[in-house]
């Protein structure tokens, strides 16, 4: 029997927003296949996708602070949705966050996320994954890791908390009391080791899947390779901290650890940021996201929801078709675009026009 018999797509059926970004309120029924949001720039298309992302994963790909998505002059926002048979609800204000699953308030975000679904976010600025610094790639790993491993998010959060305090001591004290700093070093080691192990495992599993996606989209064998590069290199994390004291004293900041790790993307064995053509780089960015979808499917047994922000309209016909073919067929797709010309080749299940803080159904 094929394992695919057990794979069911995650299906977000209904989405309701309140005081979210430019929307006073909004309600829409999403389709199991492809739902398209069309509209001019700055009408809120991406915000709709973002709200779905926050509802499912409690984080936004556009901002680190949920405070920012609260509508102008309001004090809180709420997003609600029907995911498969589960009703999810998040309410957020500066002082309070409320998570509800099927009418029951969840005090721990881990419990909420365990009942939620998985997703892959694809956007034009994915190219930054290839071209820009390590931060984008760490974010990519963290977003994926949080969806793959229940232990990832708590470890990341504890690591970041300890890191902030440790750096604060470096900034605050002219003379460093290492005993005090090391109280946090031990926390960095404890939680950092979890992150290192999970990231290494994740990258190893992702590599063949991303390489396969690369070949499928580009039509030729680019030999996409991924290499996880911890800033601690081969050293034990504890030793790496011990070895960097002098540098830390000089720079007054924690210079080594998972927050400085990188993921090297290679085409034919050479770093893609420097040696790949622009076309190749764009394909690598797509392949990373498609590989992520494949890994989530493999590990979680669910086809992740794909949120595709403003990509299709920007591609030429050939690459558009190649990308569409490469997207997992079973996945629910939420797509934004500024124009509908390209859509005739595909068959969206629903089209919504987004304008003036509202949406209207448009016949496909």
């Amino acid at each position, binding site marked *: 029997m094929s394992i695919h018999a057990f794979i069911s797509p995650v299906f977000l059926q209904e989405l309701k927003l309140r005081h979210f970004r430019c929307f006073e309120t909004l309600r829409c029924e999403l389709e199991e296949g492809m739902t398209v949001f069309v509209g001019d720039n700055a009408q809120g298309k991406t915000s709709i996708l973002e709200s779905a992302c926050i509802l499912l994963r409690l984080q936004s790909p556009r901002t680190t602070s949920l405070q920012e998505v609260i509508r102008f002059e309001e004090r809180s926002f709420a997003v609600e949705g029907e995911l498969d048979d589960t009703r999810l609800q998040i309410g957020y204000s500066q002082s309070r966050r409320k998570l509800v699953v099927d009418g029951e308030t969840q005090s721990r975000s881990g*419990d909420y996320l365990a009942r939620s679904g998985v997703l892959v976010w694809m956007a034009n600025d994915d190219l930054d994954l290839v071209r820009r610094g390590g931060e984008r790639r760490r974010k990519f790993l963290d977003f994926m890791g949080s969806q793959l491993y229940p*232990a990832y998010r*708590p470890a990341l959060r504890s690591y970041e908390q300890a890191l902030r305090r440790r750096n604060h001591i470096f900034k605050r004290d002219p003379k460093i009391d290492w*005993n*005090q700093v090391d*109280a946090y070093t031990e*926390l960095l080691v404890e939680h950092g080791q979890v992150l290192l192990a999970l990231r290494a495992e994740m990258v190893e599993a992702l590599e063949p899947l991303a390489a396969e996606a690369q070949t499928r989209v580009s039509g030729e064998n680019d030999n996409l390779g991924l290499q996880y590069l911890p800033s601690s290199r081969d050293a034990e994390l504890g030793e790496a901290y011990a070895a960097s004291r002098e540098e830390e004293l000089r720079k007054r900041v924690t210079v080594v650890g998972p927050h400085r790790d990188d993921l090297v993307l290679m085409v034919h064995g050479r770093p893609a940021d420097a040696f790949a053509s622009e076309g190749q780089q764009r394909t690598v960015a797509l392949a990373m996201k498609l590989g992520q979808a494949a890994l989530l499917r493999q590990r979680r047994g669910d086809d992740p929801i794909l949120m595709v922000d403003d990509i299709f309209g920007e591609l030429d016909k050939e690459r558009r078709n190649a990308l569409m073919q490469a997207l997992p067929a079973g996945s629910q797709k939420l797509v934004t675009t500024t124009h509908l010309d390209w859509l005739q080749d595909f068959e969206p299940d629903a089209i919504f026009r987004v304008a003036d803080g509202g949406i209207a159904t448009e016949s496909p």
Partner: protein
Amino acid sequence: MDAAADDSFEKQNAVHKVEYPPEIKTLIGNLKRLPGIGPRSAERIAVWLLKAGSEAVGDLAEALTQAQARVAPCQICGFFATEEICAICGDESRRGESLCIVEEATDILPLERTGAYRGLYHTLGGRISPLDNIGPEDLNLEGLWKRLHEGGFEEVILAVGSDVEGEATAHYLAHSLESYGVKITRLAQGLPAGGGLEAADDLTLFRALEGRTRVGEG
């Protein structure tokens, strides 16, 4: 709602605005400073006190005065005491070789209620928290070093919280205590009593696994 209409409504009312007499406002102001009391609660309490009669209010005032005048931190451990030293430090029947370190004096009572501990305590009066600008120098550590220096302790139990601040405080203390040659232990973390595995979050379960205890020979 119509903003203009709302506005004029406010104005009309402003003319006749009546407030509490200053005595009550002062009372409410003082009550609001108490932890956990918001403006609404402060108002409710103030009105209740006014109605409660002079005896009840006198009792309350007396209780406040007495508590303030007679209770002070124990000179040795920092727990609440009416003498120079508290009931725990003065209890000869306690095991003097064991010292349990807590963040706040209020942490001692829950530990006492377990009945499982018969040793002594030391109150830090806080925990290390760089972001709140609280460092080791703000904690009652001098007293701790002095007690340990005088000797007699075989085990120090770190009974601090398990959040980042608590963990960092524990690491700091564990390191600073190394030179005293005492056994250093921490409270175990694990499954909540009376709960199934499904009730525990991942980190709790992970720590419960790490701190598992032997139940049989084999």
